[in-house]
Structures are given as structure tokens and as C-alpha cells.
């Protein structure tokens, strides 16, 4: 059913028909799989990278200026690439690591390469906002740098880290849809194949609903989690 020869209203109704969802449902699972794995990788990689960026800066806990500068330069390089170019660039890398250059797992590499640096910067900016007095208090009671990182810096900034991660997840979702074009499957792939190549606009509509719902859900969960923490600390 195409918008070119069918009224909007009919396409809209058809988008709720099980027929429109037949090929979409498996694609949703593919997307969730990709988003899930990429988010885990992004979370771990981004937190580690963001922490290193924070503690090694000149005023940080363990200043190592050369490391900070070089990591920062790498992060900037990765972040300057548009996501589509990153996906194309990572094709040979995926072939090297996985033996094949297409498919879900190959795209996860590109997604992670693009999202880790982005989330790392968000983590860094949260951690840099930490009140210096809290770190001093921890130092004065004899805490090691390791304890300060895990018992002070991360708990203190957790609400804002959660908000940053929410932003990152949403970026992953949108990039996953893009990766669909490059053999990763998922909702993006369905949207292009049915909505663009076959003019089955009811499927395109359905794909849009799923993406919107997903993003809303993530944003809602992220907001709620950070709100609960702030409430507990009586900061709101």
C-alpha cells in the first residue's frame, strides 16, 4: 500500500494490520539485540574511557598529561566521523575480527566505535562537575584514588551519568536504524526495504511507531531512574 495511490487514512489503518507487522516483528528482535549488545559495550567502554579522560587531566586525581592528550585526540577523531562513514570504515575491521564484513555482529563494531567516544565525553563532563570538596573529604579520611573513583566520583555523579547514558542509548537506537542499510538487518532495514524500495508505506509507518515507542521508553526509564536517586538525596 503506497501513499502515492492510497489515501493517508487507509495506509494509516493498514499499518495496524498484522500483515504489516509480519516481517517487522523479527526485525524488532534484531534491533533489540543490536541495541542491547552495543549499549553494554558502550556503557563499559564509555565509563572506562571517560574515567581515564577525567582522572588523567592536569587537575585530575592521577594527572598523566600525555595519556590524556592522546586519548582526547583519538576520541575527537572518532567523534568527527559521521555515523555512516564510521559504518563503512569499520567493514574491513569487522572482516579482520569476525571474518565477515556484514551482518549484525559486524555492525555492532561500528556502532560501538561511534558510541563509546560519544558516551565517554558525556561521562567525562559529568565527572568533571563533581564538587572538589567531596573529593577532598574522601582524601582527608585516607581513601585511595581507586576508592575515590568508585566510592565517591561515580556515586556522586550517578544521576547525571544515567542521564548521559540515556542520551547514548537513544543515539545507539538511531544509529542502529542507519546500520540496517549495511546488512545489519533490524527495523532500519525493514523501513528502507519496504518503505522505500517497495512503497509499502504501512510497514514504514509501523517501523516508525516502534522506533518512537522505543525512544520514549528509554527516555522515560532514564528520567525515572535519575529522579529516584535525586529524590533519595533530597536534591529535588
Amino acid at each position, binding site marked *: 500500500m503506497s501513499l502515492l495511490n492510497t489515501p493517508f487514512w487507509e495506509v494509516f489503518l493498514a499499518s495496524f494490520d498484522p500483515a504489516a507487522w509480519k516481517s517487522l516483528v523479527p526485525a524488532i528482535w534484531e534491533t533489540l539485540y543490536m541495541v542491547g549488545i552495543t549499549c553494554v559495550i558502550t556503557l563499559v567502554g564509555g565509563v572506562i574511557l571517560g574515567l581515564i579522560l577525567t582522572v588523567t587531566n592536569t587537575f585530575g586525581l592521577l594527572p598523566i598529561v600525555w595519556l590524556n592528550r592522546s586519548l582526547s585526540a583519538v576520541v575527537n577523531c572518532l567523534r568527527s566521523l559521521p555515523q555512516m562513514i564510521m559504518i563503512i570504515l569499520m567493514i574491513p575491521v569487522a572482516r579482520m575480527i569476525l571474518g565477515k564484513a556484514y551482518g549484525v555482529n559486524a555492525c555492532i563494531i561500528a556502532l560501538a566505535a561511534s558510541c563509546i567516544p560519544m558516551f565517554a565525553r558525556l561521562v567525562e563532563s559529568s565527572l568533571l562537575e563533581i564538587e572538589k570538596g567531596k573529593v*577532598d573529604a574522601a582524601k582527608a579520611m585516607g581513601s585511595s584514588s581507586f576508592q575515590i573513583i568508585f566510592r565517591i566520583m561515580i556515586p*556522586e555523579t550517578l544521576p547525571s551519568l544515567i542521564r548521559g547514558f540515556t542520551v547514548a542509548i537513544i543515539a545507539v537506537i538511531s544509529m542502529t536504524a542507519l546500520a540496517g542499510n549495511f546488512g545489519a538487518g533490524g527495523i532500519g532495514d525493514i523501513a528502507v526495504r519496504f518503505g522505500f524500495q517497495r512503497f509499502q508505506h504501512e510497514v514504514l509507518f509501523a517501523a516508525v511507531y516502534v522506533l518512537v515507542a522505543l525512544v520514549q521508553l528509554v527516555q522515560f526509564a532514564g528520567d525515572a531512574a535519575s529522579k529516584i536517586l535525586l529524590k533519595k538525596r*533530597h536534591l529535588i
Partner: protein
Amino acid sequence: MSKPLIEARGVSRVYADADGGGVEALLDVSLEISKGEFVSLIGPSGCGKTTLLRLIAGLDEPQRGEALLDGVKIEGPSSERGYVFQHVNLFPWFTVEQNIAAGLKARGVYKERKDDVKAFVRLAGLEGFEKSYPHQISGGMAQRASLARALINDPKVLLLDEPLGALDSFTRFALQDIILDLWEKRGATMIFVTHDVDEAIYLSDRVVIMTPRPGRISEIIDVGFERPRHRNDAGFMKLRASILEKLNLVGERKAPEYFL
């Protein structure tokens, strides 16, 4: 005087200010404090009291001179030097009890000394508020909690940076007695920063008067009075008058140095 426990030898600390110049927060300051002594630092805002305390705590380094503890150069923070901050500095994501226990956990002795946490909660008069978060308790309670948090590590020296500055006078008097009591019982050496002349005389063995720009010690006064002290004694009043005079706070009303 026996060998000093804490010693500052000609410490200087310059901060860069906004227009590229330097603020001499401390210039060539020397001070010796013996074990078990209660010393107050007093002086106008910006005379380097916090700066000196931070150097002794090891949170900052002097650009010249050195600070020593037991004759050993202080090269970083340690749990033997407890610090109560000018601005209450409890960890908002911990309960009162967890805040007080934080020092034990930092040193990895929490398991053995779990019962101490209860004792310090009681000492700080915070029974019933163990599970409260810092924002749910009053300013006085929060300051008692930070006192307990610093004391639980059994520091050789307790550095107190205007711990009572933000409190009303009722709470303030009560806490002064709590601090004295702790000092007498636990025998920790105290370095106490204050703006309040009465408080300094009431609490200390010696009062160190500091002057700003550059931050220096102008005079050290021995307070010889018997304890417990009475704020309305003739001697107390006389000493207060003489310290106020030294701080230029009495006499003719001067034109203010700055306007709001």
C-alpha cells in the same frame, strides 16, 4: 616545650588571581604545635587560615617551606590528620551512619570496628537519625556528623575549619562543649579555625592571630585560664578586649574597606 607534633617551617603559598597577579595566601609562616594542644587560628577573612589547614592536611602543597608531622614531611593526605570542613561536606548519597563509617571503610577496617560506628553515632547525639540522609538533618546535626566522621579514624590531629561558623549561638555553645569534651577524652591535638574571639579563648590553649595580604602570623597568645572557663570572667573579658584590639575590631569606626 617538647618536640612539636606539628610544625610549619616557613611555608608560603601563592595563588594566581584573575588578573594574572598572585595572592600571597601565606607568606613564610612558621608554627609549632605540641601533642595534645588545642590551638585556634583567628583572623579576618582571606588571611590564609584555610590555606594553612589544607597544607597541614596534605590536600595542597606549599610552594616554599614544609609542614611536618612528628618530624616527617607531610606529602599528602592521610587518615592520621582528620579534617572537618568549613562547608559541611557530608556525602549526600550516604546515610548519616554510612557517612560516619566512611573513614573506616576507606581504611579497610570497617568489619573489625563496626561497633564503633554506633558509639560515634551516640557520641554525636544522632541516635534515631542513623538512616537519615544529610539533607534530612539540621545544620548542627550535620556538623556533629562530620565531626564524628573525622574522629572515627582516631586522628593524631584534628583540623577544624570554622566548624561552627554557620550555626546559631545555642547550637554553637553546645558544640563547643562537645568539642572540648572530645578533646579531653581522646587526647587528639586540635587546630581550630574560627572568626569568633570568644570561641577561640573559650576553647584553646593558644590563640594564633593571623593577618591577610600577605597571610602571616602576627601574634600567638597563651590562654592560661583554668578549665572549665567562664565567658564572663574578668580575665576572659580582658583578653577578649585585647585580642579584638589586635584584630583592629574596636575603637573608632573605620570606613569599610569594601562595599557590597
